């Protein structure tokens, strides 16, 4: 009975949704160009503050945001406040997990992990760690940034976790790292506020678009986010994993 009721409700909602959207932007096909003076086109041509000269990879210096990857410039410069909020959501989720999943169980017996898992873990762990670090340090040049980089680090610790008997994520260490990274992020915001009057302003020089140290505070922000997301998700994984074995 419940399924039929749910089905009817979902179908009704679906019909309203599809009709409404067909009136609004249409159900099929994509738009041919971005809204002309919308926020997106300004972020692409990096002329929000009125500097309208051409942005050329490898040559322009001192552009609004030095990041070649426009998505990173939106995430870490134009809308960096969203990302600060975003990191807080993950911080609260990790906190909730550790609060509700209870404390770590000391003497836990674990199903032995096979030989293959152990050796492959030892090989894969450094690879994944390095890839993760590469991804978030090059966030402003290549796709990917703080979030995937941080999660990759967490996955590498997860792998080590699965494989190694005695290894136990020193959760306290990660909690401290997470807290410090968060404080650092807010501190950068406040320094920006004191130095140049705007919270989270890009107070470092932006260099030439395209080389490594070219995007002002973006690499710094992304390193912090990478560490914070990495430690948070490892915390979640450690709490989830331990609690699950004890349950």
């Amino acid at each position, binding site marked *: 009975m*419940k399924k039929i009721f749910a089905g009817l409700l*979902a179908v009704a909602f679906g019909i309203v949704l599809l009709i409404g959207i067909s009136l609004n932007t249409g159900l*099929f*096909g994509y738009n041919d160009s971005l809204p002309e003076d919308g926020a997106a086109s300004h972020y*692409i041509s990096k002329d929000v503050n009125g500097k309208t000269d051409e942005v050329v990879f490898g040559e322009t210096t001192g552009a609004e945001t030095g990041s070649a990857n426009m998505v990173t410039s939106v*995430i870490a410069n134009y809308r960096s406040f969203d990302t600060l909020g975003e990191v807080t959501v993950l911080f609260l*989720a990790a906190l909730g997990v550790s609060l509700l999943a209870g404390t770590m169980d000391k003497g836990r017996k674990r199903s032995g992990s096979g030989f293959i898992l152990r050796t492959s873990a030892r090989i894969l762990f450094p690879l994944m760690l390095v890839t993760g670090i590469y991804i978030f340090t090059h966030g402003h040049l290549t796709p990917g940034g703080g979030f995937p980089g941080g999660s990759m680090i967490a996955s590498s610790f997860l792998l080590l976790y699965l494989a190694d008997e005695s290894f136990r994520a020193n959760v306290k260490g990660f909690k401290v790292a997470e807290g410090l990274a968060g404080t650092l992020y807010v501190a950068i915001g406040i320094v920006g506020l004191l130095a140049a009057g705007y919270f989270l302003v890009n107070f470092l020089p932006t260099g030439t*678009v395209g080389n490594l140290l070219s995007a002002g505070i973006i690499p710094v922000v992304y390193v912090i986010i990478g560490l914070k*997301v990495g430690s948070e998700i490892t915390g979640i994984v450690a709490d989830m994993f331990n609690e699950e074995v004890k349950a």
Partner: protein
Amino acid sequence: MIKFASLLLIIIGLYGILSTRNVIKILVGINVMEIGINVFIIAMGFVNDGAAPILSVDNPVNVLKFVDPVAQALVLTSIVIGLGITALGLVFARKIHKKYGTYDLSETGGES
């Protein structure tokens, strides 16, 4: 086509949430909705034969039509929020399992 498929995903996800009493299945329904809305946002931000919004050695200048970077920034945030909500939901699921011995909501006395 993908825009239509992502809308169907949102509807299927809603059906998934409403049709079951199992806590894990509800969370799967929520994740289906999250993936649906994320794909929809990217589809809304897509521009016909637009290029990925990254300046690089082979397209150094902003000459090509680029896809909307703001939509991608929103989806990045939404994906990580989805992870946070799912992790918290699973911890609640575990506490329900520990307290009532099952993942099924019908035995938990509903509105107490």
